[in-house]
């Protein structure tokens, strides 16, 4: 019935048209068409739907995996805060914090005295350097002769020690040694600051060297005496400086002694407390196991074991008294120390041997009052310190996000402060983006607007190929090539006006930034080029028709119209740079400290560590579940958040500046 009706409906149509010369196309009866579609099912499902589900599930797998990653990161990392809170609490209760109040600012003393030492030795050298050079050169020459005659000397020594002595043999060896010594002494090059007579005498003395005589040859003795005299003279001349330096160095001793005693005590308490905590956790676990155990025998044994492991809790209140009880003494020592160093600063002479030394001395003179002020301020806070003040979770969050120290595996106290890593990452990313943005955007403009077809065919694949270079290979290049290159260039005389030159470290943030810029260029170039390509042809037509030159069209129409795409390309490049690990791990220098921004723009030539680098470097070596492990996961969470934020910004920028499509 269906088939007849269907046939009539369909076959009626061609008849009404002009195609009556052709026979109507044959079609299967509608009934069989309808039934056929019902036949094709897989597991009772329409294959169309199955395919749809298959594609849909593939898309959702990506989303599910992303969610799983977030959940896993959070689960591992979020425990960090309570763990760190406990650790900081122990740090306070055991009195470590108390000691650090004085000990931290006291570190400054070392920097100051090292500056002073440098100033002193530079000053002394102005007088004693020629004498010292002569002495050192003579000793070096002597050593060279000895090295050349080492074989003969040994033979002779052995012969001399032999019992009974063999005089003929000794004689033979002695002659041999004499001959080689003469030859060796002759072959030496005598520096110009030895006069001809001196050179001759030295040569004679070296030729006469024998193993039996341990005294120095006479001229060498004279040279040593000359240096001592000069050194003494220099020390008299700069007596004030030398004395100030000695006083300054000694000033810290009594204070340091007290602090060290307190520190030892605090550490002892802390170790006991930690040990107790471990035992206690184990005991709790045993008890829990006993509670769930069904076998009465096992249960009894577990309970018994738990009871046996009960240990005595550390009486923190008692042990802290031993530390806080000495507050007054500590304050007194700090005051004494401050007075002594201030006095040293007052007698610190204005003059020093060289300009550099004078500068150092001035720095120290200005630094000491500040240091003394810091010490006094620290001592004043000792009274207000309470061992039982609870550590709030906010201060823990603050200690992580604003902490300036990342110290792990320390015998004293671990700190997980995030700022050194973040600052390293940000500075490196900023360098990379500052370098990569002009390069990639300009290259994109050139390729899109000015290059011939053949140039395009060359430039695009080559730049995109950069992406295929494994980052570890770039790391090699950074270590072996770029590092040396930057160091060599930084030593060129006419470039000394550049801040930070000459650089100290081959592996530094600038080096890493250069390589990361290189890695970011393909992303930024391709996306910028796409953005320019998407600028409607009509804009270019309009600009051309108004008589604009090529450059005017590019800079007044094409680039402004593509700016959203270019900005989002830069942001995506930034995301790539922040997340890159291998290059920064190999090249950034891995010094965990906040870069010294007081160095001005030269800061970029300092080494640093990064968020990604620290995870790669440390995660493999820490014990699972420890506070360090959790801290690294926290860093991972923050890194994840930064990447999400950057990507979101890139999308927002692309949407925000998108021109309305006309």
């Amino acid at each position: 019935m269906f088939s007849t009706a269907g046939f009539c409906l369909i076959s009626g149509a061609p008849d009404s048209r002009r195609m009556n010369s052709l026979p109507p196309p044959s079609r299967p009866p509608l009934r069989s068409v309808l039934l056929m579609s019902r036949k094709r099912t897989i597991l009772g499902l329409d294959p169309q739907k199955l395919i749809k589900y298959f594609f849909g599930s593939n898309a959702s797998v990506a989303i599910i995996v992303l969610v799983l990653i977030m959940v896993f990161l959070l689960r591992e990392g979020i425990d960090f805060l309570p763990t760190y809170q406990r650790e900081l609490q122990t740090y306070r209760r055991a009195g470590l914090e108390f000691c650090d109040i004085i000990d931290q600012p006291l570190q400054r003393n070392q920097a100051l005295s090292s500056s002073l030492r440098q100033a002193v030795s530079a000053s002394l050298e102005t007088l004693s350097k020629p004498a010292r050079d002569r002495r050192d050169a003579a000793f070096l020459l002597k050593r060279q002769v000895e090295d050349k005659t080492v074989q003969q000397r040994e033979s002779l020594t052995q012969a001399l020690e032999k019992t009974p002595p063999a005089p003929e043999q000794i004689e033979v060896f002695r002659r041999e040694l004499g001959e080689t010594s003469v030859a060796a002494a002759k072959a030496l090059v005598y520096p110009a600051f030895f006069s001809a007579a001196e050179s001759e005498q030295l040569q004679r003395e070296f030729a006469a060297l024998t193993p039996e005589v341990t005294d120095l040859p006479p001229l060498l003795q004279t040279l040593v005496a000359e240096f001592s005299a000069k050194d003494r003279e220099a020390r008299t001349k700069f007596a004030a400086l030398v004395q100030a330096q000695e006083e300054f160095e000694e000033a810290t001793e009594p204070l340091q002694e007290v602090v060290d005693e307190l520190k030892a005590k605090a550490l002892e308490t802390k170790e006991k407390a930690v040990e107790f905590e471990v035992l206690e956790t184990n005991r709790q676990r045993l008890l829990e196991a006993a509670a769930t155990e069904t076998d009465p025998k096992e249960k009894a044994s577990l309970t018994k074991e738990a009871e046996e492991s009960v240990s005595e809790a550390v009486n923190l209140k008692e042990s802290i008294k031993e530390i806080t009880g000495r507050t007054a003494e500590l304050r007194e020592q700090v005051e004494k120390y401050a007075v002594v160093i201030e006095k040293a600063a007052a007698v610190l002479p204005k003059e020093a041997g060289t300009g550099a030394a004078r500068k150092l001395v001035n720095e120290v003179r200005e630094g000491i009052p500040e240091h003394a002020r810091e010490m006094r301020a620290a001592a004043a806070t000792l009274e207000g310190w309470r061992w039982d003040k609870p550590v709030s979770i906010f201060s823990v969050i603050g200690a992580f996000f604003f902490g300036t120290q990342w110290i792990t595996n320390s015998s004293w106290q671990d700190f997980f402060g995030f700022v050194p890593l973040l600052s390293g990452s940000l500075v490196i990313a900023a360098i990379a983006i500052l370098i990569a943005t002009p390069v990639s955007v300009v290259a994109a403009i050139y390729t899109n607007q000015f290059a011939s077809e053949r140039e395009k065919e060359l430039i695009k694949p080559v730049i995109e190929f950069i992406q295929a270079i494994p980052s570890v290979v770039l790391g090699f290049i950074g270590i072996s090539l770029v590092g040396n290159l930057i160091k060599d260039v930084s030593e060129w005389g006419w470039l000394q006006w550049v801040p930070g030159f000459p650089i100290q470290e081959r592996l530094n943030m600038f080096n890493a930034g250069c390589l990361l810029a290189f890695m970011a260029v393909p992303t930024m170039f391709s996306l910028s080029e796409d953005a320019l390509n998407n600028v409607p042809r009509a804009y270019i037509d309009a600009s051309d028709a108004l008589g604009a030159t090529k450059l005017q069209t590019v800079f007044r129409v094409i680039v402004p119209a593509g700016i959203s795409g270019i900005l989002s390309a830069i942001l995506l490049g930034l995301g790539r740079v922040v997340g890159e690990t291998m290059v920064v791990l190999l090249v950034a220098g891995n010094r965990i400290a906040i870069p010294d921004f007081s160095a001005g723009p030269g800061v970029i030539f300092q080494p640093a560590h990064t968020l990604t680098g620290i995870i790669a470097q440390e995660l493999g070596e820490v014990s699972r579940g420890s506070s360090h492990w959790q801290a690294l996961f926290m860093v991972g969470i923050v890194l994840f958040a930064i990447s999400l934020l950057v990507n979101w910004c890139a999308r927002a920028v692309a949407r925000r500046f998108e021109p309305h499509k006309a």
Partner: protein
Amino acid sequence: MSADSTAQSTPPPVVQVRDMDFCYGASKALFDINLKVEYHRVTALIGPSGCGKSTLLRCINRMNDRVPSARVTKGEVLVKGKNIHDADVDLTQLRKQVGMVFQKSNPFPKSIYENVAYGLRIHGEKNKSVLDEAVERSLTHAALWEELKDRLQANALALSGGQQQRLCIARAIATVPDVLLMDEPCSALDPISTLKIEELMHQLAHEFTVVIVTHNMQQAVRVSDYTAFLHLGKLIEFAPTEELFTNPREKLTEAYLRGTFS
């Protein structure tokens, strides 16, 4: 040819095309074109799709230069008596004298003000008062000033299609060109907007010489003083509009006007 006989008046033609052949690579697109465009008249180019009317229009401001293999192979194009293919012709100056409006409105994604001022800016005009004056004059000519004077800083892409096209006209006349080329300026617009632009063209003819390509014959009748009919790259007939439409001399023109082929 018919073109010679119809244009005998003074002053001399502002655009003159002489015996021009035009090729895209090996294929010839225009054959032996002769055309004279009079000062302050509207000249319409009509013809079936692919007849070369847009190509002819684009020869006048050398927009075809951007197509790599396209070139004039014979004859010459004179604008105000100067051969525009001469070596000493500055393309930017030529295009300043010969403005163009496109089929689809294409304002820049900038403010209304900046769109109109663009032409002057690229030719080095920095004086704010000169720019302000030019923007007002051009928008007034384009019948947009009253509508838009209070929101000159708004984005041009926020305007309606008809406004956008009039803005493009304002932009093209801001540099005070001698000739204004219009390539099917109304084909993407609704009837009301089309009407406004047609009205505009009559007024523009007082100050500019207009050459318009259109596939709409009624539009050609309404707006133009002269009409040229092209077919398969050849200029079949060129005459005052009234004459061409009421009394075509060529059979081909008559057939096209009747609509017997398209």
